[in-house]
């Protein structure tokens, strides 16, 4: 991939730094002019030597990469061309492998191989020559330009600013990438399965055998049981983490001595640093069997992959999340309110219940929403400790499945990429993304408003 032209422009760029510097030394009285230091002029020439040529190189690579495939596909004799699109892609891949000197099991037409090699040769040649020439031309033009009219420093700073801006745009591009990749597959999915069936259907069984030629929609994609399972496990998790996390936060911020706080707070935060796969192991090998044994000793039937086990362990995982967020919120309630309440003779718990909690309520609600969003999106614990079969049940001892478990089972392993099954995973992903997005945006907004109010 790295051909000679890249080395060339790199070397030219390196030397142009010193050339630019020297020219600046000769041409410009740097003491009276404010265009920048000598080194700025060096960098100025480096950028002009490398950047345009490199961008050109990238664009050529992308375009030729696309063209070469299309053209090679066109060169395949008609009788050899498979009519299925994905087969065509495979066939093309083996031609490329052979053309690069490898070997392929399937027989490939000589003519296309030769075509590909020719195309690649001339394309690379053209690319190298033009990249080098652009680099040289731009080097000479801007070498001549170095004089007191050029503000090299300003130019450099503007270039840096452009890079800084591009970096901050990556976040938006990531979000757009997520939305695009989810939407494309999800729309395809809804061509096979109706929206109504997905959101209201009571039977989820995508694993139903899809033989060749069978209509895809015969697998059943009613997602209600999956949502119900996610909901059940989230409720169990929040039932544990909500009170425990909140009370921990209250105790730590209002009652605990400085020393207790210094020890206990980091201890709780250790829980937040434990990877989810470890929680999964804990749920599957310790909590799950324990719950099954306990419930069986009470004569209750229990699945070894009970919703309770996954939910409780998820709750443990979320405790530090709730407690540290609530701690922040409670601490930002102004001290004057506490004083006012103590001033009229309220006890600490009365102050907390009647003044601090109500004042901190929006923040606490936001913390809970973020926690719920995390519980819904949590994957490893449920993959390892919850079940696969989508059952519509409210019994915590029964096994249920969740959105994330289904995404994983549908996508891990060897699948044809565009089957309804894989697209169903993206539809679930889209649902997950939408729900967590709403929860997050709401929560983030509330927290921000809350901070502004008391800061």
């Amino acid at each position, binding site marked *: 991939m790295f051909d000679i032209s890249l080395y060339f422009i790199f070397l030219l760029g390196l030397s142009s730094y010193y050339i630019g510097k020297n020219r600046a030394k000769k041409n410009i009285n740097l003491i009276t002019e404010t265009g920048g230091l000598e080194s700025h002029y060096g960098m100025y020439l480096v950028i002009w030597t490398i950047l345009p040529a490199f961008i050109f190189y990238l664009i050529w690579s992308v375009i030729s990469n696309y063209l070469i495939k299309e053209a090679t596909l066109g060169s395949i004799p008609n009788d050899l061309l498979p009519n299925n699109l994905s087969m065509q892609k495979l066939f093309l891949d083996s031609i490329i492998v052979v053309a690069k000197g490898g070997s392929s099991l399937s027989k490939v037409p000589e003519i296309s191989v030769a075509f590909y090699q020719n195309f690649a040769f001339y394309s690379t040649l053209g690319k190298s020559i033009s990249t080098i020439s652009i680099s040289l031309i731009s080097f000479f033009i801007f070498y001549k330009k170095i004089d007191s009219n050029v503000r090299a420093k300003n130019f450099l700073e503007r270039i840096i600013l452009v890079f800084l801006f591009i970096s901050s745009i990556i976040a938006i591009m990531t979000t757009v990438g997520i939305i695009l990749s989810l939407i494309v597959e999800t729309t395809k999915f809804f061509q096979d399965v109706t929206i109504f069936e997905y959101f209201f259907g009571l039977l989820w069984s995508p694993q139903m055998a899809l033989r060749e030629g069978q209509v895809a929609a015969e697998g059943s994609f009613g997602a209600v049981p999956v949502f119900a399972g996610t909901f059940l496990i989230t409720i169990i998790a929040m039932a544990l983490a909500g009170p425990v996390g909140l009370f921990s936060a209250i105790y730590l911020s209002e009652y605990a001595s400085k020393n207790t706080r210094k020890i206990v707070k980091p201890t709780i935060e250790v829980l937040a640093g434990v990877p989810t796969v470890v929680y999964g192991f804990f749920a599957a090998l310790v909590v799950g069997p324990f719950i099954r044994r306990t419930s069986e000793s009470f004569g209750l039937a229990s699945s070894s992959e009970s919703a309770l086990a996954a939910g409780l362990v998820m709750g443990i995982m979320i405790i530090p999340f709730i407690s540290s967020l609530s701690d922040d919120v409670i601490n930002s309630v102004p001290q004057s309110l*506490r004083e*006012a*309440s103590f*001033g009229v003779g309220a006890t600490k718990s009365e102050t907390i219940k009647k003044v601090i909690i109500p004042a901190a309520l929006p923040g606490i609600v936001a913390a809970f929403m973020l926690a719920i969003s995390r519980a819904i999106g949590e994957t490893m614990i449920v993959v390892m400790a919850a079940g696969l079969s989508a059952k519509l049940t409210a019994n915590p001892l029964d096994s249920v499945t969740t959105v994330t478990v289904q995404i994983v089972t549908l996508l891990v392993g060897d699948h044809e990429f565009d089957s309804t099954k894989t697209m169903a995973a993206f539809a679930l992903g889209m649902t997950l993304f939408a729900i967590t997005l709403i929860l997050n945006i709401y929560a983030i907004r509330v927290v921000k408003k809350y901070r502004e109010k008391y800061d």
Partner: protein
Amino acid sequence: MIKEQTKLDIDNVDVFYGKKQAIFNVDLEIKKNQVTAFIGPSGCGKSTLLRCFNRMNDLIDICKVSGSILLDSVNILDKKLDLVRLRTKVGMVFQKPNPFPKSIYDNVAYGPKIHGLCEDISELDEVVEKSLKSAGLWNEVKDRLNEPGTGISGGQQQRLCIARAIATNPDVILMDEPCSALDPIATARVEELMQELKKNYTIIVVTHNMQQAARVSEKTAFFHLGHLIEFGNTEEIFTSPNEIKTQDYITGRFG
């Protein structure tokens, strides 16, 4: 004239913040139904002493108070003393108005509610109305009792805090620079209010503003660097102080 009764008898009080001593050996008697003003340059310990009277300093871990403060002959520095009862007897108004983010009504009703002072709602309504009236706020807010206490003007908020403090029917009201965040008009209202309130309550006010001390108080105590320099009738303190420091401060030479 009625004989002056002693409400608070402060005896040999020292206050430490960790190793740093903030109050040195203060002796003072606060008389009933009077306004006593604490004046002095900032950092002189006047607020610290004030906060001893309802043990607000207990909120600060490193703060240690020694000596004795007798409120009606009970030592309020006693470790076993019930803070809840003390604070119902000694109310406090803070430097910055700090209404709870609740309705005006709930702000005033908060104290009576938690202390169980009222049998039923109508009684509570009465207490709220009485307190707001005593604080001179009733006419301004009677139509919007359910609006948030944070939504009224700063002066009104401070009078709301005063109403909140008197709703539990205390004996003593501590005021920690109650007017420092208020404009002159609101300040005048609060000062008038103090004159009204001293008929029923004993008031101790910490202030930066010497004119205010002169206007509102019967007795004035002047503090400097944690020491009580001079204590006496306000008139005397302001017209013929015994100590040079007091004179210097009052005439604006330092502080």
